């Protein structure tokens, strides 16, 4: 393990999330990124771009050894870089002959080495082990990526503190490998703290380790581990364009608790309200800062606790009393995944309340749902949910425009009209970006308080 290093952006870098032995997907991704295999078997990019792996290239998946060999060859040839990681560190110490317990898919790496030994003998295996060990131990805790000398991004496996960037110590190396560990969960897994909220320096921090369904930049941090080995995607982030390129993968790990499913559950956690008590600011994607005073916050929270629909089911507040929001789910499984409740249809008014009485609701909902199904939007847009705007006409409600789906905003929603409109658009965008119920609720509360 050596000092943290600088990389010059030069012709461009492709930063790769946790591969975990998903070699087939990795080769497909390389092809998609435009790399070509040369006569010496190495992959080169015609524009001279280079590869930077965020670590955890092995373990859990089917082809760890191939993945290790790929990076060993490409790093040696100056075509790729790799940083240190929790699995990498474990395997390095195992290869170094230390007493470690191989678990969480690391035992599969041992199996692959045993198979290699059966085929190539112990001498060749020992030589190979030495090479792989050296590669893993040489991997720095993080890389600072510079564009013509000035830092523009940091690549790290699990997390970093701003004051650790460019520095080195065993404590920093541990932090970069595992992230901040703040306790133990009910299932015995470590409970991770959220370090991203403390990141204020200007570099974009690119990290992996903690799989989540989408790669979204938040507060100048982006997680590009989309759980390839758990049936998600293998992700590359291209620099400097920040383009995301992905290849779909299979659930090789078959873990008892799939972290991608677990992530959806965490997304629905009850919002922590204390941070809104002294007034707060909503930062929109468009760069606006909307200030909100909190003098009647408790009345608003009372409303959303006792009168309004469940927080998980409300995405935005329609800006006029004439309008309603209609959120529809493909099936009950999709509804459960996104809201924790099985309602296929949620119709909410401008205060986030159910629009019709329970008796009316059933017939209304059946009619809306039939209409939505008829449109075949679920299939066309390949989305678990669809969000429409409805209009009240007398006692009736008419489904009007489709506002958004998992694919993105459907209408060029004009956010400039009013603050309420801007908050509605921001809330919907947060849902599309798969942000937490708490983050979406922040926009709803702001809209409610500013009314």
């Amino acid at each position, binding site marked *: 393990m050596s000092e943290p290093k600088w990389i010059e952006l030069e012709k461009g870098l492709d930063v790769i999330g946790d591969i975990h032995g998903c070699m087939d997907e990795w080769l497909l991704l390389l092809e998609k990124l435009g790399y070509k295999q040369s006569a010496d078997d190495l992959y080169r990019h015609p524009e001279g771009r280079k590869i930077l792996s965020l670590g955890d290239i092995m373990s859990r998946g089917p082809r760890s050894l191939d993945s290790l060999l790929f990076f060993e060859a490409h790093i040696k040839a100056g075509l790729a870089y790799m940083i240190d990681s929790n699995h990498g560190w474990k395997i390095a110490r195992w290869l170094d002959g230390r007493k470690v317990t191989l678990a969480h898919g690391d035992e599969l790496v041992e199996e692959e080495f045993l198979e290699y030994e059966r085929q190539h003998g112990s001498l060749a295996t020992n030589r190979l082990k030495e090479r792989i060990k050296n590669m893993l131990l040489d991997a720095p805790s993080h890389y600072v990526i510079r564009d013509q000398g000035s830092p523009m991004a940091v690549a790290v496996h699990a997390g970093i503190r701003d004051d650790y960037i460019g520095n080195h110590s065993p404590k920093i190396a541990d932090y970069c490998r595992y992230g901040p560990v703040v306790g133990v969960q*009910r299932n015995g897994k470590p409970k991770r703290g959220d370090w991203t909220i403390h990141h204020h320096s200007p570099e974009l921090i690119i990290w992996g380790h903690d799989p989540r369904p989408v790669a979204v930049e938040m507060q100048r941090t982006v997680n590009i581990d989309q759980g390839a080995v758990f049936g998600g995607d293998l992700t590359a982030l291209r620099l400097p364009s920040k383009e995301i390129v992905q290849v779909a993968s299979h659930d090789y790990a078959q873990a008892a608790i799939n972290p991608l499913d677990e992530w959806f559950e965490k997304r629905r*956690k*009850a*919002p*922590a309200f*204390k941070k809104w008590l002294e007034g707060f600011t909503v930062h929109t994607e468009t760069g606006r800062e909307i200030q909100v005073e909190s003098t009647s916050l*408790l009345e608003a*929270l009372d409303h959303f*606790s006792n009168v309004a629909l469940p927080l998980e089911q409300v995405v935005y507040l329609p800006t006029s009393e004439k309008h309603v929001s209609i959120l529809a789910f493909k099936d009950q499984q999709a509804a459960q995944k996104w809201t924790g409740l099985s309602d296929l249809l949620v119709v909410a008014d401008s205060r986030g309340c159910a629009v019709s009485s329970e008796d009316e609701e059933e017939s209304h909902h059946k009619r809306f749902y039939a209409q939505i199904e008829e449109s075949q939007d679920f299939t066309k847009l390949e989305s678990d949910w669809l969000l429409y705007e409805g209009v009240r006409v007398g006692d009736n409600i008419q489904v009007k425009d489709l506002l958004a789906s998992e694919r993105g905003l459907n209408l060029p929603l004009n956010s400039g009209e009013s603050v309420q409109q801007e908050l509605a658009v921001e809330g919907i965008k947060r849902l599309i970006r798969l942000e937490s119920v708490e983050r979406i609720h922040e926009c709803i509360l702001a809209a409610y308080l500013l009314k």
Partner: protein
Amino acid sequence: MHTTYQWIANELKQQRVRTVVDFGVGDGILTQELLKNTKIETLWAVDSSVENLKSLQQLAKRASLKSAWGSYFYYDEQWKAKDAIILHDLFERVEPRRLEAVLHLFLYDYFPKHLVLINSKNLHTVEGDISFPEWCHTMNSHQIYTLRFEQTDEELVAIFTRKEWTRP
């Protein structure tokens, strides 16, 4: 006299609790009953209704009594690791289909030594065909708590007690 409240107050006294949260305090009758227990160092009277909280001001002003806004649907770190939390009006305020998420928040995030649920006889409470005690057991699938039930004149009370705090 309300026998359920007396029973709970007495039970908590025997468990020697020092920090107690009366969640969903309503009219404050249980709070007053609990205030008789001088071993309680801090008693929080919590409600999600701003109106109810205002009317609490008329309760006896005691140094050990604090009132706070709190809801089943919002997270508040201050309820972590208390000796006892009483979910007073859980079944009145929370629809059956939302109960599981709420109980998870209290049992596993707030993680009190004792969690008390009060279930009125007349209320349709939990989803599906299972009984209230059966439902409580499914909520304790990790066996982190021991469960006790007490049938009073008016209600069925369930107490979840963390295993390490369960007395033989």
